[in-house]
């Protein structure tokens, strides 16, 4: 780092102070937000941090003038945050930023219009990011990471400030999404419910008024929650909304949405085209889809095993596993088609041992009892129309549409 003189440091700090107070005086949200983006690593903030570390007595500067000192409660801790951030001390940086944020919030509340909303977004974003990094530092040192939880509490306060009748309320969805990110990261997904309730049932909020970007993010997270709960129609609706309204150039986000949408669609009987998987690099689903098309149980099981870790981590494993029944259905349908070709009059009766044999060809070793059980389950869930005659060990298929399509409805549970 080039040598920074005391004089120069003094000058840069004062420059920051001026910019801050001007931004507030002129209600310049765009400028204010840049002055608070710690993790953006912008050259001006980095040089501010260096200056602070050289000058060491910024508080005196703040007190010099009323136009700075009125924001002292925000700026002083913010300065400490920048100093700690610059020296890699992320826990202290978080603590200082939390103080600054807590001082910022009441000021924000007092400002009349929503001019500072973008700056508030930055504060909300930064507190989450800094908390994550502080937690990493804590965990690295063998201590328990609890800063992200604290950031969550702060954001709830922010939500409270925004939940009013004025123009600031359009910021509530952004804060909600930050909370979602925190809860998903912490694994405390059940906490999302109360936030969702606040957003969806409060009369002051009109979903359509919120910025598009926030709506997409919101639908993505709530869609994922529906996947966890296996509400496939709802998941389909939400994730599809997110997909449709997501900016087409934002490939990373589209990929994230598809990662969850594809298993959902598969569960309601809709298969994606091959090029979609290729374009967005979701090749882990290739074999799953092949297995569904072919009724190849062995291939499905192999695919699940191969990518087990990935599927478990993203939480779609159980959804994909449930596709087994559809694979069985496809297999039985193929047997039926072959039988129909050979002897149409007898096609609607399928002997159990034939199914056992077909599975043996797929190197799946299941005995009569087990196959009988699977057939019973298929009939029970309406994947096969007909009944099973135990004595003769024959599946008697309905003459009409014995293998009903799912038609965008999930398999009965």
């Amino acid at each position: 780092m080039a040598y920074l003189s005391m004089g120069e440091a003094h000058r840069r700090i004062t420059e920051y102070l001026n910019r801050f107070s001007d931004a507030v005086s002129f209600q310049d949200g765009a400028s204010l937000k840049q002055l608070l983006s710690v993790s953006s690593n912008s050259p001006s903030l980095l040089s501010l941090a260096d200056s602070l570390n050289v000058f060491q007595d910024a508080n005196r500067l703040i007190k010099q003038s009323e136009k700075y000192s009125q924001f002292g409660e925000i700026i002083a801790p913010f300065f400490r945050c920048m100093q700690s951030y610059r020296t890699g001390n992320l826990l202290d940086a978080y603590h200082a930023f939390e103080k600054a944020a807590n001082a910022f919030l009441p000021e924000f509340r007092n400002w009349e219009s929503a001019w500072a909303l973008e700056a508030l977004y930055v504060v909300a974003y930064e507190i989450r990011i800094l908390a994550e990094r502080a937690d990493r530092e804590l965990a690295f040192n063998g201590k328990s990471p609890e800063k992200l939880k604290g950031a969550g509490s702060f954001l709830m306060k922010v939500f409270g400030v925004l939940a009013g009748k004025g123009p600031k309320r359009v910021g509530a969805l952004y804060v909600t999404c930050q909370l979602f990110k925190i809860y998903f990261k912490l694994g405390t997904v059940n906490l999302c419910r109360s936030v969702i309730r606040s957003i969806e049932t409060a009369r002051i909020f009109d979903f359509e008024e919120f910025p598009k970007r926030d709506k997409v993010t919101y639908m993505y997270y709530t869609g994922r929650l529906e996947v966890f709960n296996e509400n496939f129609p709802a998941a389909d609706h939400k994730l599809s909304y997110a997909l449709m309204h997501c900016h087409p150039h934002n490939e990373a986000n589209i990929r994230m949405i598809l990662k969850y949408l594809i298993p959902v669609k598969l569960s309601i009987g809709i298969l994606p085209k091959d090029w979609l998987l290729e374009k967005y690099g979701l090749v882990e689903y290739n074999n799953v889809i092949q297995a569904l098309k072919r009724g190849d149980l062995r291939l499905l099981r192999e695919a699940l095993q191969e990518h087990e870790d990935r599927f478990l981590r993203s939480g779609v494993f159980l959804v994909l596993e449930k596709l087994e029944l559809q694979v069985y259905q496809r297999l039985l349908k193929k047997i039926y088609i072959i039988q129909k070709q050979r002897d149409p009059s007898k096609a609607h009766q399928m002997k159990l041992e034939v199914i056992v044999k077909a599975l043996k060809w797929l190197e799946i070793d299941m005995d009569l009892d087990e196959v009988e059980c699977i057939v019973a389950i298929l009939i029970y869930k309406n994947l096969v129309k007909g009944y099973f005659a135990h004595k003769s060990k024959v599946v008697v298929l309905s003459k009409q549409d014995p293998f009903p399509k799912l038609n965008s409805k999930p398999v009965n549970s």
Partner: protein
Amino acid sequence: MDSQCSTPVSSLPRYKRSPSRRSKSRWEPLPEEKSVDKPVSISNDVVKYDGWEKKPPSLNSESKWNALNNMKFSLPEKKLPSKNTQRPAKRQHLAGGLNAANNDASSDSDKEQSLTAYYSSAISIANTPEEKKRRESRSKRFEKGQGHRAEINYLKQKNAGAGNLYSRRASALMISKSFDDSGSKAVEDIDWDALTVKGTCQEIEKRYLRLTSAPDPSSVRPEEVLEKALLMVQNSQKNYLYKCDQLKSIRQDLTVQRIQNQLTVKVYETHARLSLEAGDLPEYNQCQSQLKTLYAEGIEGCDMEFAAYNLLCVILHSNNNRDLVSSMSRLTEGSKKDKAVKHALAVRAAVTSGNYVMFFRLYEDAPNLNSCLMDLYVEKMRYRAVSCMSRSYRPTIPVSYIARVLGFCRTSDGNDEDSDGSGLVECLEWMKAHGACLASDDGGEIQLDTKASSSSLYMPEPEDAVAHGDANLAVNDFLTRTSL
């Protein structure tokens, strides 16, 4: 199971039970923050005896002896009285009780002894030279601490007053108190590092007395004795409640002495297995969480066995897919190859898909105690199976087939032939209890009428649900059987 004395409350002097349930397991001592500088005044000791009656009861009254011991160890976070002139009186109880108790070292463990005998032998403060020496060395240890001169001098004075149990007791408790004048500490709040002493008690069999303040070393058993105690419990023919009580006592002695090694693991594993067999899930969960910590510290034990139990618990108890998925994702490659874990994973797959044939096959051939956990799901699985069969089979299914695939015909040699017909009978009873429509066919074989049953099946309310699943262990039963 709290073993506050089971004396009818009326005979005890009034005292308040220790209130709070701690969210943390009480077997995890919390670190003490720092010593308080002010010397502890003797009057603080009084807190422990708050609530005592004013008159010294007769020395030989055993029930008061019980009360004494309960008093000492049940310390709620009560306010300190500023002074209490009753201590002298209490000391005398001790004297009386102790003398009576000393001979009980080898208690006859075949009878449910009066609690008195247990308590007195466990807490006997031997009036021996060794004990005096130990006390002195303890007081020397604490001399090094700051600002405690005052108490130590006081104690020495007291000790010099000699011969009477009152002062000895006072000094023992004094020293073992944490240097904080609130005086009302529970097991977790005490600075165990400073107080960890080697126990000297030689009792292999010892009832569980929940501690809320520092224990007397002569009431704590050293590791060698605890090993024997564990063995005793493992070989004992007595019922679950007895073993549970003994094990809790062993666990407490281990915690108090900060012993965290293979013995500790064995104790928790033993207790966990017993709870599983008895169907006592809360106790099992307590042990399981301790085991998790111990295994994580690298202490050897049957970690695969318990990983399987853990998985089964999640599968069979929570409806939460997230918990299930995260448990599964936390399994290491190595553990997935373990037989017990593989079995648990197979059960998981069977439950998720509703594959009853697979479920009951796994039930039949379960490693370790996996079947005990599966027990908790058997009813549900059978109901799911029969509902499914009622919708898919026409016109009927022989009940003998259902009995076979739904695990009613359990035989020891592994084949599922119902040689004595008892499985069929049990299955028929089950069917009837669940509203199934049955009919005999021409050959005299009983069939399930599937179409009719599909609308008549139901899940009945469980009757006489007993926590342990074993009616012999019903609480009322226990209370009436324990004598004083």
